[in-house]
C-alpha cells in the first residue's frame, strides 16, 4: 500500500473527500443489483438459487477478508467455522427438531465465534508472538484435521455427511429455495456488511490499518497487536458461522468437504480475486467466480478442469494484480479508508 496511515489521518477538506468516491459508488451499485435480483429473476428459479449461493458465500469471503485484508492473518481455516456451524444447525434440526432462524442462526454465529476465539487464543495469544507462517499453517491444519475427524465420525454421518436437513423456519413458515430464502440471506449479508464496515472504520479499524503498515512499530507504541488480531479473527469466525448455517439450510446437505482446506481456499480465491482489504471486494469476487462457474459448467471439458482454472486465477492474481479486480478502479489511497468520527476541517 503506497500511502501511509498518517496521510489518511491528515485527510481534511473537500478536495481530499472528492477523491474518495469510487468505493461508495461500487457499494451502492452492488446493493442495487442485489436488491433488484428477486424482481428481475423471479421467473428463473435456478438463477435465484445461484444468487442465494452467491450471497451466502459472500459472507464467507468477507469473513476471510476481515482476517487477511484487514488484520493480516492468512487464514486457511474459515471453512472450519463455516462447516462446524453448518453441522451444528443440521444436528439441532435432526436431534432436537428445532430450526427457528431466530434461534439457530445466532447459535451458529456463537459457535463460529467461540471456536474462532479458541483457535485464536491457541495460535495467537501467549508470551511469544507467533510467526505469521505458523498462524497460517495452524489454521490450515485445523481445517484439515477437522475434515478428517468428521469424515470418520458416524454420529455426524461420516463421509456421507448429513442430508435432508430440517428446513429453516420462522414461526410456522418454512424457507425453501427461492425468493424468500434469498431475502433472508441478503438481510444477513447487509447486517454483516454494515457491522463490518462500522468495525473497520472505527478506531479499532485504525489500529488494524496501522498493523498492516508496520506491526512491529505499533507493538512498540504499546498496542497488543495479537489481541486485536484475535478479536477480529473471532468476529470473522462468527460471520463464517452464520454463512455456514445458511449454506446448510439452503443446500439441505452438509458434508466433510464443507469443513476442509478446499472450501477455505475457495474463500481465499473469492476474496483475492475481488480485491482484499475492501469489504465490497469479496462480494464482487464471489459473484464473479460463481457466475463464471455457472456459465462454464455446461461445457464438460471445462467443468472437469474448473479447479485448475481457479488455481490459475489465484496464481495470476497473486503474481500480477494483488489488489484484485477492485484494485483496477480504486486507488491505494482509498483502499486504506478513513476512520473514526468525521470531524470538521480545521
Amino acid at each position: 500500500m503506497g500511502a501511509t496511515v498518517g496521510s489518511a489521518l491528515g485527510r481534511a477538506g473537500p478536495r481530499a473527500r472528492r477523491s474518495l468516491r469510487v468505493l461508495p459508488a461500487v457499494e451502492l451499485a452492488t446493493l442495487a443489483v442485489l436488491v433488484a435480483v428477486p424482481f428481475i429473476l423471479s421467473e428463473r428459479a435456478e438463477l435465484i438459487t445461484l444468487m442465494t449461493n452467491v450471497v451466502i458465500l459472500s459472507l464467507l469471503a468477507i469473513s476471510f477478508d476481515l482476517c487477511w485484508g484487514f488484520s493480516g492473518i492468512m487464514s486457511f481455516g474459515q471453512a472450519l467455522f463455516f462447516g462446524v456451524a453448518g453441522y451444528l444447525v443440521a444436528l439441532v434440526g435432526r436431534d432436537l427438531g428445532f430450526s427457528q432462524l431466530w434461534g439457530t442462526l445466532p447459535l451458529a454465529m456463537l459457535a463460529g465465534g467461540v471456536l474462532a476465539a479458541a483457535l485464536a487464543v491457541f495460535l495467537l495469544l501467549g508470551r511469544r508472538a507467533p510467526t505469521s507462517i505458523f498462524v497460517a499453517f495452524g489454521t490450515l491444519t485445523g481445517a484439515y484435521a477437522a475434515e478428517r475427524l468428521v469424515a470418520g465420525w458416524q454420529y455426524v454421518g461420516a463421509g456421507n455427511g448429513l442430508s435432508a436437513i430440517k428446513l429453516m423456519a420462522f414461526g410456522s413458515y418454512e424457507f425453501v429455495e427461492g425468493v424468500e430464502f434469498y431475502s433472508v440471506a441478503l438481510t444477513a449479508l447487509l447486517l454483516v456488511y454494515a457491522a463490518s464496515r462500522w468495525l473497520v472504520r472505527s478506531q479499532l479499524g485504525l489500529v488494524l490499518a496501522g498493523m498492516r503498515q508496520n506491526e512491529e512499530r505499533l507493538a512498540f507504541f504499546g498496542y497488543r497487536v495479537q489481541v486485536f488480531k484475535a478479536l477480529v479473527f473471532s468476529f470473522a469466525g462468527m460471520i463464517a458461522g452464520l454463512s455456514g448455517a445458511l449454506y446448510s439450510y439452503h443446500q439441505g446437505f452438509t458434508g466433510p468437504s464443507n469443513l476442509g482446506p478446499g472450501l477455505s481456499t475457495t474463500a481465499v480465491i473469492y476474496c483475492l480475486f475481488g480485491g482484499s482489504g475492501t469489504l465490497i471486494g469479496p462480494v464482487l469476487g464471489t459473484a464473479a467466480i460463481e457466475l463464471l462457474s455457472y456459465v462454464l459448467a455446461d461445457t464438460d471439458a471445462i467443468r472437469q478442469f474448473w479447479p485448475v482454472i481457479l488455481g490459475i486465477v489465484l496464481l495470476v492474481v497473486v503474481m500480477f494484480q494483488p489488489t484484485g479486480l477492485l484494485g483496477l478502479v480504486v486507488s491505494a489511497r482509498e483502499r486504506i479508508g478513513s476512520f473514526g468520527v468525521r470531524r470538521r476541517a480545521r
Partner: protein
Amino acid sequence: MDFAIKFAFDILAFTSVMVLIVLGLGVIASMMGIFNFAHGELVLLGAYTVYLSDEHGLGAWPGVIAAPVVVGLVGFVLERTIIKRFYATPIIAMLGTYAIGLIIREIVRGLLGGHYKSIPEPISGAFSVGGLDFSIWRSFIIATTLVVIAGSWLLLARTSIGLRVRGALENPMLARACGISTGRLYAFTFAFGAALAGLAGALIVPLYQLSADIGIRFLVQAFLSVMLGGVGTFEGPVLGASAVGAMASGLPWVVLPVLADPLVFVIALAFVRLRPQGFIAAGRV
C-alpha cells in the same frame, strides 16, 4: 518381542519417507525463507511418474529412477518462472505456491479420472532374519533414505557447492557481494528439494494408493516436522520428521485411528507453540 521389532520396522520405513519429504521442504524453507505449499503436490508428481511408467508397460523401475529427475526439472522451471518473484514476501509466496499445488493436484486428478490406482512394489517379497519377515521394498526405502541423508550431508558439509549454499544461507547479501550467484543457487536448491519430494513420491506409491489427495496429507505432516525440528538446520527437520513419522504410525495403535491424525497435529502444534525455535535452535547447518 517379535511384534515390537516388526512394529519398529514399520515405523522406521514410514519415518524414512517423511524424512525425505521433509528434507526437501526444510532445505527450501531455511534457504529461501519460503514455505513451499506445493511440496505435497511435488510428491504427488513423483508418484504419478511411477504410475505412468507402470501404465505404459515399462514397469515401475524406470519411473522410480525418472521421478527425481522429472520433478527436479519441474521444480527448476517453477523456481525460475514463478517462485523467484516471491522471495521478498513470504506470505504471498505461501499463496502462490498453494495455487501451484492446487493446479498440479487438479490436473493430476483430471488425468487419473478420480480413481484410486495401486501400483505393485517393484521388488516384492520379503526376507527373513532370525525368523522374522521384513518387506524388501520397505528395507529399500530405509536404505535409500540413509544414502540420501548421508549424500546431502556430504554435499552440504564437504563440497564447495555446499560451502556456497551455507554462505548464502548465513548471509545472502555478503554471499552476493563475494560473487556467488544466489539466484542460481536458489534455483538449484529448489530443484534439489523438489527432486527429493519426487523421489519420496516414487518410493511411497507402492505402499499407498495413488490418488490426487495424497499430497495434502504429506504437506501437513512435513510442515509440522520442519517446525518441530526448527528451520535453518540440517538435523532439525530430520529429527522432526522422525518424531512426526513415529507418532503418525504409532498412535493408531494406541487411540482410535480416526483420532490419531488430528491428535498428531494437535500435539505437534502445541509443541511448536511452546517452543517456536523447534528441537534445535537455528544458526548453523
